């Protein structure tokens, strides 16, 4: 069974088609990558899968279950966790508390239990705390558990975000640019870490990445998105040699450069939704 099966989803913002008829399938325990130029609709695609956006058309099936139209918390409870391109940690909470918050959907303690602290609740609290420490250690943040999450360094914040996602015991992990801002050594560590996640925890990993080197290195499968459409899918070698990919993502060098004032009228629509000022 495929871990994730996305069947021709379309997401439109206003008049802009951000994701158009995109389909892909990720086998169980695979590492899949989604690449494409900046703003090709990758994050929108992720947001559709994790339930932030409701696609206008199409189906999203995770482990045989249709998750399209579910709320984000329901999707998370079904075992799809994610990280974010711009780190979104819970400020005002410690590192450990962030991880604990990630375990929310795996805990049963209700408000009455919290008030009464019956034995089962205490046991749960202990288990959860021990588990949280496990994840803290797993991502190498042991010793920093009582700090405010926002006081961590950039790389540590990224790792904490992953720990928070892992704490929810997911089956599919979506990573949005996990190596952004890292130097090559750190990137290498991250690659190893991602592999470890797959091998040790048996996770299916789906990531967005810019760094081609990393992508080619780590992925079992690559999907290329351009203007919201899937233009290529396959193994790293296949994708690397796909002429459409080279043209769209890497930019063709040989093309004649038009003069600025003569920009053609049929400008492709930009996919980026307007930033909301709330």
């Amino acid at each position, binding site marked *: 069974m495929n871990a994730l099966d996305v069947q021709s989803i379309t997401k439109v913002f206003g008049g802009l088609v951000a994701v158009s008829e995109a389909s892909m399938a990720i086998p169980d325990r695979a590492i899949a990558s989604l690449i494409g130029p900046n703003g090709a609709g990758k994050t929108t695609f992720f947001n559709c899968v994790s339930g932030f956006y409701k696609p206008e058309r199409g189906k999203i099936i995770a482990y045989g279950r249709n998750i399209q139209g579910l709320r984000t918390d329901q999707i998370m409870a079904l075992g799809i966790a994610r990280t974010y391109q711009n780190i979104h940690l819970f400020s005002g909470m410690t590192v450990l508390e962030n991880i604990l918050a990630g375990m929310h959907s795996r805990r049963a303690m209700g408000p009455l239990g919290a008030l009464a602290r019956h034995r089962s609740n205490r046991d749960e609290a202990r288990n959860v705390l021990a588990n949280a420490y496990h994840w803290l250690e797993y991502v190498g943040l042991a010793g920093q558990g009582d700090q405010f999450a926002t006081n961590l360094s950039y790389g540590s914040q990224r790792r904490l975000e992953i720990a928070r996602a892992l704490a929810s015991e997911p089956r599919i992990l979506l990573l949005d640019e996990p190596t952004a801002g*890292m130097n090559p050594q750190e990137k290498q560590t991250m690659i190893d870490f991602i592999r470890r996640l797959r091998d040790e925890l048996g996770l299916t990993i789906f990531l967005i990445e810019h760094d081609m080197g990393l992508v080619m290195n780590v992925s079992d499968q690559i999907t290329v998105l351009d203007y919201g459409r899937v233009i290529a899918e396959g193994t790293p070698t296949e994708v690397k040699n796909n002429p459409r990919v080279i043209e769209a993502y890497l930019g063709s060098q040989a093309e004649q450069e038009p003069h600025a004032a003569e920009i053609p009228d049929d400008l492709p629509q930009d996919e980026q939704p307007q930033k909301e000022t709330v």
Partner: protein
Amino acid sequence: MSLLELRNVHTFYGKIHALKGISLRVEEGEVVTLIGSNGAGKSTTLKTISGITPAAEGNIILGKQEITQLKPDQIVGLGVIQSPEGRRIFGRLTVRENLEMGAFTRDDKAGIAQDLEYVFGLFPRLKERENQHGGTLSGGEQQMLAMGRALMAKPRILLLDEPSMGLAPLLVKSIFEIIKYLNEERHTTILLVEQNANVALQVAQRGYVLQSGHIIIADDAEVLAADPSIREAYLGGH
């Protein structure tokens, strides 16, 4: 004497040490590019120069003047104009108003009118959409608007943050064409931050490579473009 010089600049976001001692300089009439991966500190460098995230340590010198402690509007008043990442045009203002905001620090009405015509000449599509709200423009048009807005300020030095972001290759070409034109014909000094290092190194004379808040390599653009390790890391490895 360089037009803009950064000496050992440190910047913090909260407790995150984003710039760990950046030193760079931009000469009059040059195009200098900063390349590096996401989160390396490229945009932060530009924000620090503009005073949005003031430097905690170090000096920023414009010509002979120290501008480290100045407020953003004062720095803009001195001709350091930034076109921020992601365009950041004012979505609820019309195209014309956006351009007028670019000329906020200027008082000469005639000069502004002249420059407006010049920008419209450069980007005829903006002229067509003069009274549309900025938010309704397409990505490419927004980028044109952002650049036009920066030009309206008559920059001594133009800081461009990822002008190619989210644009089709064709548009990227034309945007860089304009950058080249500005530099060659209008003698505008440009500090260019770009992820698409390939293209950036083509227009730039010199380049700096940033990594985790440090400058790791500084050299001429051709040298950088030819460097195999750079190619491996930032130019897509082909």
